[in-house]
Every structure is written in structure tokens, then in C-alpha cells.
């Protein structure tokens, strides 16, 4: 199949890119391994930053400075400036396509203050900001008649003899058949890689870094992969996120002795490190919101009460909530320039899979939804412009088809996947030591070698999720390898990357 702009991933970034490309009057095809409204974007609760000053005085300059500070010197000031300056127009655009934002008493978009922000800057839609933005982008994409194809798994990028990206090799999950898509420009919008930490992540089970792994195998440069944001309050067993508002509203963090040991209102990385240190001492950690009272909890934190009951069998009104810090957002990604173009000609990237150098060593809350909207648009526009300059399609065949090899199925990859998740959480997690990173590196290297001994036990062509998860596991191994190598090469502690002396 041929199109002008091929977009892989249909979350907030992919759909924004698709809308922007389509508005440039080119043909667009969007491929997703799920359905367009099921991506990680739907889980974003906090909001989208824009210095509108609807609630209190604010300025674009303050937004820029807050973002740069949180990035610990690893952001690019020019792109940060661009993103923050575009924010008000971006929110206005989202409003114009119908996002049901919460409103203030004086009929403006409501804003609230998130950690690290000097003003109430985050525009929100109750606790469903990501969900409502994502669904509205989907509505808009439908109104433009954008072709979206569901349940297609990215296998490899296609490149011509000049190393130019000209399409993608996909696996149709429903038929089990491989399909080739040719395009004049390709955009990756495939999301982050928090799931390399297995069950120790707040993310959807699908956040397996596929696009990053595939891009790397095709020769794309990755940047700052060692930076992973850990959220201090994931539920202990399920890693389901208990939102920051639980601490913001006055919740305590306690150890097994019932002692508070950290300032609950400190930034996420600081609280996560404090909890990690207690856990390593053998303590169990709890979030305590009992003193806030049933009425307050039911009004302000209803989701939290429901999830704690469901997954931990505790009622936060009467019980302590067992928690641990878990992987939440990945700052690293495919390196792109100011046009969202990667180092591979013809390949663009946006969203969590890309690194536009706006988050640096630590992302500010409310900036991820902003990033997907601002740079999703840029990627879509620039990919469309490039497509217009191309006279014809180039055809190519995949160089290295992983699935063509023999898999002996001697080893159960589900066992290794779980081992990988726990190992990375313990050795490549919140606080890192060189010897432990080396240990993790050796495990990943060994496991990669053993891939031909694994494979899917299910031989079915039709909707083989066993095979799909095996392919995701392979991608996570490739991503984890880079995360560890990047962590090893950064000796100093900065932002979300903390190195401890042996």
C-alpha cells in the first residue's frame, strides 16, 4: 500500500500529526497496534500546561524557566521556548475542536498548579484530561476522513539503497500476514518504554518502546535514554497510579513504624528516592490519607479510593495504602531536530518515543500533553511538506526479517520478561550503581542471545497475542540495552538519573 505520509501510532501525538499532515492536503495513513483511543495518552490526568493566566498571573517566560529548571540543563532552550510560546494557541486549538476542558466561574478554561510550576498553569478536564484530548483528536481525525488501520504491529522500517526511510513492514495481528506500506515520509509516534520495568510501571501494558527499538535497529540515534521518571505513589501490587493530588491534598507517606520520613510535597524524584532508601532498609511504605476524612476522599479522590479497594483490598478511608515508586514516564527517545526529523532521511518522530529536548533530565507535570500537541503538529506539517517535494515512491524490501528465523521454544519468554522487569527495577531504577548496571547489562546481553531459543508457543496466524508479546519483549530488550549503556556513561547524578558510589 502507498501513501504520502505514514504515521505509526495513534495516540495524542500520532493523531495530532495526522490532522496536521492532512490539513496540508496530502494522503495520510495511520497504523496502530491497538485502536486509536486506547493509547497511553488516555491515562494522563493532570493537565496540559499553557501560561494563560486564567486563574492567577503567569507568563510564558515563567513556563520556560520552570521547564528549564526541571530539565537540569539537558533541555534545548530554543525548543523549550518554542513549545511554551505555542502553548496558548495549542490549548485554544484543542478548545476549538471540542475538548471538554473544565471551566472557571468566569467562563475561562480552568487551571491548576502542578509540581514545579510557579503558577496555576495546567489546563484540565476533571481527572480525564488525556482521555478527553485523545477522544477529541480522534473525532477531529474522523471529520477529516483520515484513514486509520487498527491492530497492525510495526516490525521494521523499510529503507532504500541510499538509507532513506520509505515505509514500514507491519504484521497484521488479525490475519497474521506481513504487509508493506510505502510512504514519502514516515512518522513514528509509538510512545514510551516504561514497560521495560515490567509490572513496576504505571503505564499501559503496550508501552513497550516498539518504535524506539525499530528506529534504533534502522540506524536512528537515541538520546538521553537513561532518564526515566519514577512516580512515588504507585499501588504496591499493581503499580496503578495514585495521583499526585493525594499528596498535594495533605496525604502522608509512612514507613512500617508509622513514621513520616520525607517531605511529601517535594518533587517526584526526591520523594521517590526517599521511599527507595526506606524500602532498601526493609521498610514497607504506605500512603496515609485517613485524616482527610471520608467526605473529602469521596469528593476529591474517588478514583483513588476505588482503585485501592480493587487492587490492594484496602479502603483509604480506614486503612493505609501500600505503595512503591514505579516507572511513569520516559524522557529519552529518538533524537530529532527542530523539524521533528530524525537523523534518518524521511523519518520523523513525535510524542514520548521522540526526544525534542524539552524535558531534559526530568519532565515537568503537564508538559507531556503539551509536547504531543505542539510537536505532533510540527512533525505532521514537516512530514507533509517533505512528501510534497518527493516525486515518486521508492520501494524496498526489509533487510533483516526477525520472524524468518527458526525459534526453538525451549525457553519461556514470559519468565524472562518478568525477570527483566524486576531486575531493571532493582538495578536500573531510582538509584543506580555501576556494578549493578553491569549486572543488568550482562543479563540483557545474555537474554538477547537466547531469543532464538524462545519464540511464541502459539502457532496460530489469527490474532496471535503470544507472538505479539514476544515481539514486544524483543523490542524491550533492545531499548533496555540502550537505557543501561546510557546510564553507565553518565557518571554524575542529574535529574531522574541518580548514581550512588559503590
Amino acid at each position: 500500500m502507498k501513501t504520502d505520509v505514514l504515521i505509526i501510532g495513534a495516540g495524542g501525538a500520532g493523531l495530532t500529526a495526522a490532522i496536521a499532515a492532512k490539513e496540508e492536503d496530502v494522503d495520510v495513513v495511520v497504523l496502530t497496534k491497538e485502536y486509536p483511543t486506547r493509547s497511553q495518552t488516555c491515562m494522563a490526568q493532570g493537565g496540559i500546561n499553557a501560561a494563560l493566566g486564567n486563574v492567577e498571573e503567569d507568563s510564558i517566560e515563567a513556563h520556560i524557566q520552570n521547564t528549564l529548571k526541571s530539565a537540569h540543563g539537558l533541555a534545548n532552550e530554543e525548543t523549550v521556548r518554542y513549545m511554551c510560546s505555542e502553548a496558548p494557541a495549542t490549548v485554544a486549538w484543542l478548545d476549538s475542536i471540542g475538548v471538554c476542558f473544565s471551566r472557571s466561574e468566569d467562563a475561562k478554561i480552568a487551571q491548576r498548579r502542578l509540581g514545579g510550576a510557579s503558577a496555576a498553569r495546567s489546563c484540565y478536564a476533571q481527572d480525564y484530561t488525556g482521555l478527553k484530548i485523545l477522544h477529541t483528536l480522534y473525532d477531529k481525525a474522523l471529520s477529516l476522513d483520515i484513514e486509520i488501520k487498527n491492530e497492525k504491529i510495526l516490525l521494521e522500517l523499510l529503507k532504500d539503497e541510499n538509507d532513506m526511510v520509505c515505509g514500514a513492514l507491519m504484521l497484521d495481528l488479525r490475519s497474521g500476514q506481513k504487509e508493506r506500506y510505502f510512504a514519502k515520509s514516515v512518522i513514528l509516534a509509538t510512545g514510551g518504554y516504561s514497560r521495560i520495568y515490567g509490572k513496576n510501571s504505571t503505564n499501559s501494558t503496550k508501552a513497550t518502546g516498539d518504535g524506539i527499538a525499530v528506529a534504533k535497529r534502522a540506524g536512528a540515534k537515541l538520546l538521553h535514554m537513561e532518564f526515566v521518571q519514577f512516580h512515588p505513589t504507585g499501588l504496591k501490587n499493581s503499580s496503578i497510579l495514585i495521583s499526585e493530588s493525594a499528596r498535594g491534598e495533605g496525604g502522608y507517606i509512612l514507613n512500617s513504624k508509622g513514621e513520616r520520613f520525607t517531605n511529601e510535597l517535594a518533587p517526584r524524584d526526591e520523594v521517590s528516592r526517599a521511599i527507595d532508601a526506606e524500602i532498601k532498609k526493609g521498610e514497607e511504605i504506605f500512603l496515609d490519607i485517613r485524616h482527610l476524612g471520608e467526605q473529602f476522599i469521596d469528593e476529591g479522590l474517588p478514583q483513588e479510593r476505588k482503585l485501592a479497594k480493587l487492587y490492594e483490598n484496602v479502603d483509604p478511608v480506614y486503612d493505609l495504602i501500600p505503595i512503591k515508586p514505579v516507572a511513569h514516564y520516559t524522557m529519552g527517545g529518538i533524537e530529532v531536530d527542530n523539524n521533528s526529523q530524525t537523523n534518518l532521511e524521511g523519518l520523523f518522530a513525535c510524542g514520548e518515543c521522540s526526544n525534542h529536548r524539552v524535558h531534559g533530565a526530568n519532565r515537568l507535570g503537564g508538559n507531556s500533553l503539551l509536547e504531543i500537541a505542539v510537536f505532533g503538529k510540527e512533525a505532521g506539517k514537516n512530514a507533509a511538506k517533505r512528501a510534497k517535494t518527493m516525486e515518486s515512491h521508492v520501494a524496498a524490501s526489509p533487510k533483516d526479517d526477525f520472524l524468518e528465523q527458526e525459534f526453538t521454544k525451549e525457553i519461556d519468554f514470559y519468565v524472562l520478561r518478568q525477570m527483566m522487569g524486576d531486575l531493571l527495577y532493582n538495578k536500573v531504577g531510582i538509584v543506580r550503581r555501576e556494578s549493578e548496571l553491569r549486572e543488568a547489562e550482562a543479563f540483557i546481553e545474555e537474554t538477547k542471545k537466547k531469543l532464538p531459543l524462545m519464540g511464541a508457543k502459539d502457532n496460530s496466524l489469527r490474532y496471535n497475542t503470544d507472538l505479539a508479546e514476544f515481539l514486544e519483549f524483543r523490542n524491550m530488550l533492545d531499548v533496555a540495552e540502550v537505557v543501561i549503556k546510557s546510564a553507565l556513561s553518565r557518571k554524575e547524578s542529574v535529574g531522574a538519573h541518580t548514581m550512588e558510589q559503590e
Partner: protein
Amino acid sequence: MKISIKREFDFIEYDVDMQDVTLLEMLNHIKSEVDSSLAYSSGCRSSVCGSCGVRVNEKEVLACSYKVQEGDKIEPLKNVPVIRDLVVSLDKAYETNARAKAWISEYNSQAKQTHEDEKINETQSDCILCASCYSACPVYAVNEEFLGPFALTRVWKVVSDKREAELKEKIDTIQTNGVWDCTLCNECTVVCPQGISSKADIEKLRAKSSQYGYMDPNFGSFGGGFDSGFGFDGTPSF
């Protein structure tokens, strides 16, 4: 705990040593430890992505928010093609959103949304497209062309929104295989994990349609029908 899952040809029983877990956790366990060929969909684990809708003992639930009970019978959603085991194709159901034109067509930039306006379609915009409502809908079961519960709820979301300037087009679009085909049985409301009542939204769209000169095509037929909007004594039934 024993549960049975509808597989290719029949229900297969699984005896799993787990207590007090969500159905999704149990499916994950079965897949990674017992039978890796089991097919089902999942994503966020916290009821916002809409991936894991299934039926338990003939009632629609999200696997991630349902606690499994002894003897539960798990089946795929109804009224949509089964691809494999618990996985269904929602392509056709999703297409209803496009056919219903469930989007802002013309933005009224003068509209001032107040806090009260926000509340008008707050619940409708919580929809996660899990398709539980299509599975439960007896009209969609017999008429695939019926626009269906979530699409009509999403139309009401737009129609009730001050920012939409082109209401007539919205109303025109939902007359055929739309608001008048619903039997107001309320099954969609009962199964919605987000507390949305598509039935109530359809009733509001009917009232709006009347304002645009449309009438219930069933009205005037024998006895007025149960879905005419009026009771037997002629008083409005909603």
C-alpha cells in the same frame, strides 16, 4: 477458583489458585502460566482505555475492574464479530462515530463556556468506547446500520455544546437508523462502566429533533408504540 472462558469452539474450564483478583489479573496469569494462546485485549488496567470489555455471566464488564467469582463464565462482547477467544472486531462499531458525524463541525468562537456548561456534557465526554453498550443493545443486534449508543451519546455531547454552531447538520444526520430506532430499553445505561446513559441522551436528541421539525416516524402507528415518547394516556413518558 474455577472459571470458564469461551474459546474457539466451547467453554474451557480453568482452575486457578488466585483469590480476590480482577478478571484481567487472572487472564494475565492464565496466559503467562497456563496457556499462552489465550487471546484477549487489555491496556491501562484502570478503566480508561476501553480495551478489556468482555461479558461475565452474560453481563458486560471491564475485565480490569471486575473481581472474579467462583464459577464465572467469561465470553466476548456480543453483536460484534469475534476474532479469536475474547477478542472482537470493533471496526464496524467505531465506524458509527463517523457515520453519526460525532464531532464539532463549525466552531462558534463567540461561545463562552461556563462552569455550568462544562457540567452539561461532562459525563458524555467520559466515554471510553469500550463498546459494552453495543454488546447490550437489542437494536444494534438486529440492525448493524443503527448508529448505536456511544455514537449517539457523542452526538449529544456535541449538540449540547455551545461551541457547535451547526446544529441542523448534526440533527439531520441522526434521523435515519438513529434516535427513533432506539427502543429506550435502557440496557446501555445498565452496562456502561462510566455511568453514561445513552438512552437519556437519545431522548434529549429526540426532543432536539422535534425542535427542528422532525417527528417520531413510529408515531401514529398502532397504539403509538412504546417508544413514541408518550404513554398510553397521552402524557409524556419521560
